[in-house]
């Protein structure tokens, strides 16, 4: 199936070369970081995790969201997702590889990562996060390969793949739960230490993931003959609407507990995010943009008139995706670390190097996903 990656028109190749050049720039920036150390990033002794780990967190969600197409199709026999499950699984593959790369570039001693498997600390969520991410990657590679090969040969997929597919469903939930456990078990960080972290992660995932799939479907319609159909897209929009609503609800619950109890070491992080704290307000514009986008997206997704209008729906999907990215991929991790345990409010701004490396990883994900999608479309003769 992979042979189909290398056949394609001019536009396809232009796109792939464009992505490759960003990957190249990212690699150069990484070599510099590798040489000098993580001091070339905006991180420091207080904001010890920042842009890289935030992206890991966000894209684990995107990866997990494949379950939102796999589950309806395989468990509820929702036939209209038939064309789209493979897109979800390939998106998951690309997203997991991005996550692993983000973890890798965040390591101070990247060549020693093997130590994590030679001497695993079984109480460390980071160990389990890597294990579950790798398992999820393998599951999705196996499933998509077997199912697509069967489709190519015009036969039914082998029986043994069913239990593998069923396994991937709770597994998807587990990867994001374990990612939440990275944070929510730390007594040192009151902002993260919330039992609702895992459900909130899942809600954001199941909103941002399907939103991204909607965007991808619209793009595929433009650049190819592939069309998943109106119904499938509407279904994705409804899923995103429910999940986005759950996300906003969970966020409101976080606000309530923090502000009703009035506990300063809980509220101060919300202050940092939404009004600024001790003169530090770099995250405030992001959080309010995220809030406004969330409101717009909810309106578009819930109101049937706007949802059913695919032009408007496209904007809604972009709004969902960006809103959650700003919240989870920018605010959440940094705000948990500021103020630091000694009560100092420190600032963090990503450096150009950090952003270039991240752009390289985004491009890597896009390249993998484009190549995989290309192979499906060729097999289905819909280019």
């Amino acid at each position, binding site marked *: 199936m992979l042979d189909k990656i290398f056949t394609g028109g001019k536009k396809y190749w232009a796109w792939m070369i464009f992505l490759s050049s960003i990957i190249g720039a990212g690699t150069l920036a990484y070599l510099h970081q590798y040489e000098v150390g*993580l001091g070339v990033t905006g991180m420091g002794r207080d904001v010890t995790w920042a842009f890289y780990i935030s992206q890991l967190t966000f894209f684990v969600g995107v990866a997990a969201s494949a379950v939102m197409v796999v589950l309806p199709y395989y468990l509820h026999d929702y036939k209209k997702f038939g064309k789209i499950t493979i897109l979800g699984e390939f998106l998951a593959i690309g997203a997991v590889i991005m996550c692993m790369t983000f973890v890798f570039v965040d390591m101070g*001693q990247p060549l020693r990562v093997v*130590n994590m498997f030679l001497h695993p*600390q079984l109480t460390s969520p980071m160990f389990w996060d890597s294990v579950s991410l790798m398992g999820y990657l393998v599951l999705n590679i196996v499933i998509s390969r077997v199912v697509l090969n069967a489709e190519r040969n015009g036969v039914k997929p082998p029986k043994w793949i069913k239990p593998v597919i069923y396994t991937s469903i709770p597994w998807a939930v587990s990867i994001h739960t374990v990612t939440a456990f990275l944070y929510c078990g*730390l007594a*040192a*960080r009151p902002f993260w230490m919330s039992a609702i972290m895992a459900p909130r992660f899942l809600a954001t995932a199941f909103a941002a993931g399907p939103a991204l799939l909607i965007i991808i479907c619209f793009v595929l319609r433009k650049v190819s003959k592939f069309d998943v159909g109106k119904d499938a897209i509407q279904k994705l929009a409804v899923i995103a609407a429910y999940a986005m609503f759950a996300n906003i609800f969970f966020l409101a619950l976080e606000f309530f507990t923090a502000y009703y109890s009035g506990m300063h070491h809980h509220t101060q992080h919300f202050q940092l995010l939404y009004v600024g704290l001790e003169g530090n307000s770099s995250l405030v514009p992001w959080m309010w943009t995220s809030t406004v986008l969330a409101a717009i997206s909810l309106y578009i997704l819930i109101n049937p008139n706007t949802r059913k209008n695919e032009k408007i729906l496209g904007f809604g999907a972009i709004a969902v995706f960006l809103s959650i990215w700003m919240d989870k991929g920018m605010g959440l991790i940094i705000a948990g670390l500021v103020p630091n345990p000694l009560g100092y409010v420190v600032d963090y701004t990503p450096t150009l190097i950090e952003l270039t490396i991240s752009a390289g990883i985004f491009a890597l994900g896009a390249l993998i996903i484009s190549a995989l999608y290309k192979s499906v479309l060729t097999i289905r003769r819909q280019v």
Partner: protein
Amino acid sequence: MKRRDFITATALAAAFGLAGKPVYNVLASKDALASKTGKRLAMVIDLKKFEGNSEMMNKCVDACHSMHNVPDIEGAKEEVKWIWPEPFEHAFLEQNNQFIPENIQNNPILIMCNHCDNPPCVGVCPPKATWKRAEDGVVMMDWHRCIGCRYCMAACPYGSRSFNWRDPRPKIKNITANFPTRSKGVVEKCTFCDERIVKGLEPACVVASKMYEPEAMVFGDLNDDKSNIRKILSENYSIRRKPELSTQPEVYYLI
């Protein structure tokens, strides 16, 4: 009951029994107190004795940092420190009452790794590069195993850990030959001078403080009921940093 069902039921019950015990232990655990076997090394810092004596405080810091090849890096962002002075309002931010005596408000406090009995930094470390030593409770570091993920820094509630954001060696003023230097990309912190403890010596900071005051810093074994540190703790009320987090810090402050 059919024979097969009976076997299944027995197996299930046995499995539950096996899993049940550890689960029960976790649920029933109280605040993890230090093991009663072996040593339980701890430190007492008498704030009164440091008052107005910033020279003594600096000497303690210098003794530690020069002996352990701690780089001298400017700026808060990439600073590396094992022991350092911090104002009361930051060292004890939860206990910073409004009208505290001036001497407490105006005199900085030495802080360092607390060698917690229940150290959150240890449980999170993916390659077990930091661990609590069973025989004396020192929270150790292996700088050759650390992968630099900085999870321990997120987990430590005291800001006790530093990361080498760049190669620290050019920033070390005089390299102490018999102590390792660190490479970039690893975490480091106070180890209660484990290299001195094995030789029966006291930590460098304690020795430095003794040049000025005999009992400004007292180091000892809390499991030894005849130790000086036990005597001091039972005769004076002490406070610890963030005791409410159940980490059981082993550095005690006399105010």
